[in-house]
């Protein structure tokens, strides 16, 4: 482990590779170059899924997405996470991709991937071609004049909803980041996706004890039924009691540079009846301040409807369909 960390610390030209399902693509497109790849798969302690003393669960950074989604403890205690993972990529990719890598994947913005167009994320200062370009897939929340890219993960939308914590090891010691603080908004530094420092590695992700196994749903809306990134996705979890909703979590994917959560909406739902009109009001709170671009204005209305539908689905998780499609 220390060897690996030391290597990565030498310079940014050394990059950690685990599943390689995004990094290798980026290298083939000459978007990311690396003098050397450091294979971190050999760190055994990062592979495990283990129970924590407080009733939570620790997901090793090197555990694959597939192992995580199908792990009995994840399936029984954090089914929202399992569903979200299985809504992403393909079986082949999930078999290779790791949990740490999922957090580290980069945007799928067309312009980021085309080295012959301007992109502030790829080449700081070169401009954002997406703002005036084909931006159907781009963000509506938290954008800046420098970048409107979205973070593509499904898994992270569930992790955000579940209040996960990211455990980090680095040359200056270990530290923890709440999930909400891990990914960044683009601001004027869109080349930075997250708050990991040079030389740091994700070692694991902690899930708190509260997993919402009774009332949860993940809904993913996209241009085909599998193997496409979300235009809008929603992770919803509820705790219900006799008097209504006692706890609510709603996180959106496909709309911003990071998983999007608005705690005001969740607070609003506390104590309310789990009915459509309240979900609509919560959706309005979440989408306040959404800014559309030429081709993605539909995302605002779509997100609103998706939030409402997914809240309804979360009340009866059996209505969920494979591929996180809308309920029948």
């Amino acid at each position, binding site marked *: 482990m220390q060897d690996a960390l030391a290597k990565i610390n030498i310079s940014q030209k050394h990059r950690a590779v685990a599943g390689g399902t995004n990094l290798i693509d980026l290298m083939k497109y*000459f978007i990311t170059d690396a003098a050397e790849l450091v294979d971190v798969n050999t760190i055994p302690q990062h592979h495990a899924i283990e129970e924590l003393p407080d009733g939570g669960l620790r997901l090793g950074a090197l555990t694959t997405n597939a192992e995580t989604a199908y792990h009995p403890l994840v399936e029984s205690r954090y089914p929202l996470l399992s569903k979200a993972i299985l809504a992403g990529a393909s079986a082949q990719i999930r078999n290779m991709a790791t949990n740490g890598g999922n957090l580290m994947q980069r945007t*799928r913005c*067309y*312009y980021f*991937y*085309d080295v*012959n*167009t301007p992109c502030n994320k790829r080449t700081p200062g070169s401009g954002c*071609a997406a703002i*005036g*370009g*084909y931006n159907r897939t781009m963000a509506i929340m938290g954008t800046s004049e420098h970048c409107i890219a979205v973070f593509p993960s499904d898994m992270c939308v569930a992790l955000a909803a579940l209040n996960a914590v990211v455990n980090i090891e680095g040359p200056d010691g270990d530290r923890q980041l709440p999930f909400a603080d891990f990914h960044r908004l683009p601001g004027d530094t869109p080349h930075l996706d997250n708050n990991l420092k040079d030389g740091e590695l994700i070692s694991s992700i902690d899930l708190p004890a509260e997993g919402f196994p009774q009332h949860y749903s993940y809904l993913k*809306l996209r*241009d*085909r*039924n*599998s*193997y*496409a990134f979300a*235009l809008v996705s929603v992770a919803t979890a509820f705790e219900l009691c006799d008097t209504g909703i006692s706890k609510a979590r709603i996180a959106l994917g496909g709309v911003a540079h990071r998983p999007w959560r608005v705690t005001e909406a969740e607070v609003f739902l506390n104590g309310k009846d789990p009915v459509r009109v309240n979900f609509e009001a919560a959706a309005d709170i979440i989408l306040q301040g959404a800014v559309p671009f030429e081709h993605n204005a*539909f*995302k605002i*209305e*779509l997100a609103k*409807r*998706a939030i*409402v*539908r997914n809240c309804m689905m979360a009340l009866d998780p059996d209505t969920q369909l*494979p*591929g996180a*499609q*809308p*309920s*029948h």
Partner: protein
Amino acid sequence: MPPMEQQKLSGRPLVGQAISRLEGYEKVTGAARYSGEFNVKDLLYGYVINSTITKGKIISIDTSKAEAIPGVITVFHHGNRPSLAWFSMQYADMDAPPGTPFRPLQNGEVKYNGQPIALLVADSFETARYAATLVKVVYTTEEFQTDLIGNMAKARAPKGGLATFLKPPPPKPFGDFEKAFEAAPFKATGKFIHGTEHHNPMELFTTTTVYNGKGKLTIYDKTQGTVNCQLYVANVFGLHFKDVRVISPYVGGAFGSGLRPQHQLFFSVMAALELKRNVRVTLDRHQMFTFGHRPPTVQFTRFGATVDGKVTALNHEAIAETSRFEDYTEVVVNWAHMLYPAQNTLFKYNLVPLDVFSPLDMRAPGGSTGLHAIESTMDELAYQLKIDPLELRLINYAERDESTDRPYSSKELRKCYLQGAEQFGWNKRSPEPRSMRNGHKLVGYGMATGIWEAMQLPARAAASITTEGKLKVNSAVTDIGTGTLTVMSQIAADEMGLPLEDVSFTYGDSKMAFAPIQGGSFTISSVGSAVKAACNALKKKILKKAKTMDNSPFKSHKIDEVVFADRKMISIANPSVFISYSDIIAANDHKVIKSVNFAMPKALKLKKYSRAAHSASFVEVEVDEELGTINVTRAVTAVAAGKIINPKTAKSQILGGMVWSISKALREETISDHRFGKYMNMNIAEYHIPVHADIHDLDVIFVEEQDDIVNELGTKGVGEIGLAAMPSAIANAIYHATGKRINQFPIHFDQLL
């Protein structure tokens, strides 16, 4: 185990039996070798360098950094390329539209984004690809236009030329359209927009050129025409035809993209000849977007009808993109009057030249485009008339082709309508839009008609009886995955009265008997007829030989007085008189008996008829009322395509067309950014084609159709017809489900919010 032994074939004839494809075993086990898998010794690898600007000139190319990389052999570009006659003369391939074909490295001019401007050759693909990024190109840029919608005012008529033989211009007007349309009590109009599509076959375009010395080449190429590529290479590089052999035994899909020689062939051959080495050039997936594509189009329709639903006025106009250097055309607006016998018509087809590569035929070119507009306008008319859409088609059923005033050689479209509707359960449709549901989902039924011309081109085949008394047949034709090997073997086996295992059909090699490019759904009719002709010639030779035998019982027999069955030639008058093929070979001093024959379309007879395959598709969609998401839950396509040689491979063709229909209507689009003049989603992750989860119940019906005119076999071809009707049927079903008429393909679900 070879597949033939596993197939229990129930007697004769083999034609008409659902025989599994004979090369399936090789394909699924990976034993089948494709053009990029012929691993000859001392192979070099070329990687194409593409322009990063859309229009302008190359000022300089600095290759020094690239050439410093170990393993790099050289970089070819316009400044150092060999001088070829091709660059100063006109040479066009078999499928070239009017204009001047694009010639890579001709000069420093850049005509489109992604244009191949150099070839880097190295000792490995990876080295070549990496070193290519170190080549520094300096350009001057010029203004460009790539946007069809923004340049529609520049539309003009296409140039004429040889291409109009297979792609006739719009039919002449009849009556007075404007007057009739004005007077029609019921009218439907539409504006239809289709985006660019790229073929994206699974197999990448690859050429492996083996340098045999002294200007002799063996070329393994991904193509739909081995002879087309042979002629192209010989002409472009000034080689003798016989010194150029093009081999393409397996093709991993092409869909039209292999109809013309693509630039990897040019580069591979050029480098092999210059370096006197074996050279492979593979285009990567990104580069699969740097040559032909289905052009974007804008179409306008205006149909008028009487109160009882008789269509009296038909107007269909299309504007399509082409390149600045060739006038690529499609048959988009010729179909409406073939289907509906209106007395007043007006059809127009114009082009807008833009700074893009020339478009290229892509499965059901023109037909799948035009029929969407025609059949969705008919659907709209049906709703206005409050007549069932199927009933409206029957009211306007064309017994003959009014556009050319000819009868059809055969036309069982009515059976397609009725059998398709029955199988689908069309009678369960409730007429009003938004009137059927299933939970959160709005349910819609839609139908549409398909048509595709049944063509035949001249082709040759060679047949011989081997020393073992077995049959060998060959043709240069490719098998692009359609089942060509299997159906040709079936035809030959029946002709000669042999079991399938005694027949060997070899193909995909330019040294074999001439075949045209494989496209347009004409291969079965062209090459199949040639196989039949070659077998017939062989039969005559067998009879002739038999007559020369001592005491031959066949001395007085004419060819129609014998049959060929059970590995024998048998006298019809006296079945106890026969001779086996092995005895004939023995009598021939144990030498092979050979024949080669041509099959030509019978032009004078065919001229009197319109020849077309027809289809009808019925589609059920479910649209989530709140979220707009669309699923094609069921579809039936009924096809009338003459004789079906092999119902299994033919069904696969139609199923493929139906999956593609879902792709065309709901998924597939090459996204352009006209500020940069380039495509933005040049990979399979972002260029969406359907996934398994998008495909639900698909059914195919082949209706009986006998055609004694179209060709010797009575076949019409099934490659395109599966994609003709269903895209429009999907759009019509979405209208029925939602009441929203979306005339832009692909339909995005958010348009239904």
